[in-house]
């Protein structure tokens, strides 16, 4: 019997990494200056997780992918214009802040409720994907907490490869220290996989998939419910950008020998 999976990818949006970011303290805590004006992208590790989910669904016919995101829906709609052409998925939206200063537990609670509310979701077929950390808060906490709320004890973080054999056994490589992977075997779904970069290149744009996705994305955005956040997170004493601009000495006239001498002396010093 073929293995089919219900793959739920959790991922928020973050400012485009090329943007300069400046923190500001507001009445409710820290935020990014002009946050709503900054161009956004899907979080890079969730982006990899989405590619891996789409590839897995393609290799296991009958499988399905959902992308569950807590983000301001107007910003998410812009991001979906590019994401939608990359992979086939159904979108589930929780309308809420995507800032890195919201507590991971609050985000996890809102996302877990959204996952539980997906119609027809079968826990026995569930593979919960996401990034192993975000490019905003960067705690690596949200996915673990969703897994814990959903009662999933088979969790893997820093995943670079998932293989599934005919019996449905998962073989997983997780990043560990010193440039190595831990290899584990898990006898099937449900499981939580926090992806690192994986192995897949970014898929090319596929306008057909984009058109198909947009038919469900727009209603999903309209249906989005506001996140019920209690504001139970930490109290921030300060958030600041480090002043680390260096006085760079640019050597354009040194010959190769002189450069090699200087670098060698520096390395040995």
């Amino acid at each position, binding site marked *: 019997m073929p293995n089919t999976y219900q793959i739920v990818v959790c991922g928020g949006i973050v400012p485009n990494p090329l943007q300069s*970011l400046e923190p500001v303290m507001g009445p409710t805590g820290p935020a*990014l200056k002009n946050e709503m004006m900054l161009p956004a992208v899907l979080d890079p590790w969730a982006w990899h997780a989405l590619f891996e989910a789409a590839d897995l669904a393609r290799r296991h016919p009958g499988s399905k992918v959902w992308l569950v995101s807590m983000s301001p829906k107007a910003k998410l709609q812009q991001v979906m214009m590019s994401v939608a052409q990359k992979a086939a998925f159904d979108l589930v939206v929780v309308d809420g802040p995507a800032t890195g200063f919201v507590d991971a537990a609050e985000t996890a609670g809102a996302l877990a409720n959204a996952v539980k509310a997906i119609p027809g979701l079968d826990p026995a077929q569930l593979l919960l994907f996401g990034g192993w950390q975000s490019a905003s808060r960067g705690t690596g906490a949200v996915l673990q907490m969703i897994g814990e709320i959903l009662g999933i004890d088979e969790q893997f973080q820093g995943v670079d490869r998932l293989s599934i054999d005919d019996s449905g056994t998962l073989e997983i490589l997780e990043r560990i220290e*010193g440039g190595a992977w831990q290899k584990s075997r898990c006898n099937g779904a449900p499981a939580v996989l926090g992806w690192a970069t994986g192995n897949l290149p970014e898929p090319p744009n596929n306008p057909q998939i984009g058109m198909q996705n947009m038919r469900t994305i727009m209603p999903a955005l309209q249906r989005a419910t506001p996140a019920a956040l209690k504001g139970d997170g930490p109290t921030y004493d300060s958030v600041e950008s480090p002043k680390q601009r260096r006085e*760079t000495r640019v050597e354009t006239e040194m010959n*190769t020998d002189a450069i090699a001498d200087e670098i060698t002396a520096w390395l040995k010093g």
Partner: protein
Amino acid sequence: MDDKVLWIGFTDENGSLDKPSLEALTATRTIAEGIDGELAIGLVGGSVDAAAAQIGGAGATRVVALAGEAWAAPRYASDTAACAQIARTVDAGIVVATAGSRFNRVCAGLAQRLGGAVDTQITDILVENGALSVSRWFYRQRMIGKLQRTVRPWVLSIASGSFVPCEAGDATVTPIEIEGFESRTEVLGVEAGTGGSQTIRPDAETLLVAGAGWTKKQADGEVHTDDAASIILEFVESNRASLGSSKSMVDLATEGQAVLPFLTHLHQIGQTGASPRHAKGLSTCCHGEEPHAVGWRFINERRAINTDANCGWAQGKADVLYVADAFEVMKKVNERLAD
């Protein structure tokens, strides 16, 4: 409960604790002393005998352990159960461990299970008037925040390199029991990520970063990937350096272009890569664009070799930028290091 500060150490295959774990123990002592609290220690691993000889100097009032085959391998179900049991046994208000892959896998799940909160990759600790604040980076090392919480238990993971390791000394360990846990996961072992050649060395003094320029056409109009590979590996071996790369470099492999065979995504430094800690970093054939340079936050001294005098490294990101051909320079550096 609030004044009980628990440090958890996972032992290695020899039953010992690694340096980052002992650094986290120092951080835990700092918290316990600052809030006038009680320090407890929990050990988890296949065996804990060697570890017991490393922690006596910490001044813990209680040392408990879960030792045996079930706790030898890093695995979510067993490690979360073990940490939760230890935290409940000592009634911990604050739980601390090093931010290694093993605790990173479980710390948030542990906080959720205990009904607490979690903050990870802590780089500094401050206690003022008995109130604990911790510092951590946000937005991929672009900004640092100092924060407090009233929720307990508060689970903290400590970034390696942020504290000095705790001194050694013998401790008396009390084994504790735990009800069984269920897991469908079997840990099979460790797979080297660099084709058998160990080029990622977190403890190295120097980081060498190889950018995509190594695989581009050179002045003679040809690609010299084999030369590039031998120059880079010779430097890394002779200098006992750690090797990193830019995202564009490792992405070449998935795009079917000429690549350096020993580079993987594990080497990647930057936005979706690592932010290692080394005293010195030398960037070669890499433009130093912002998404890459954020991975250099914890590199103290930075030099770069690039043929473009206007590259990102020149914009206040490196101490020295040498505008030169990295092939020629690094060959000569290797010759000098060999001497």
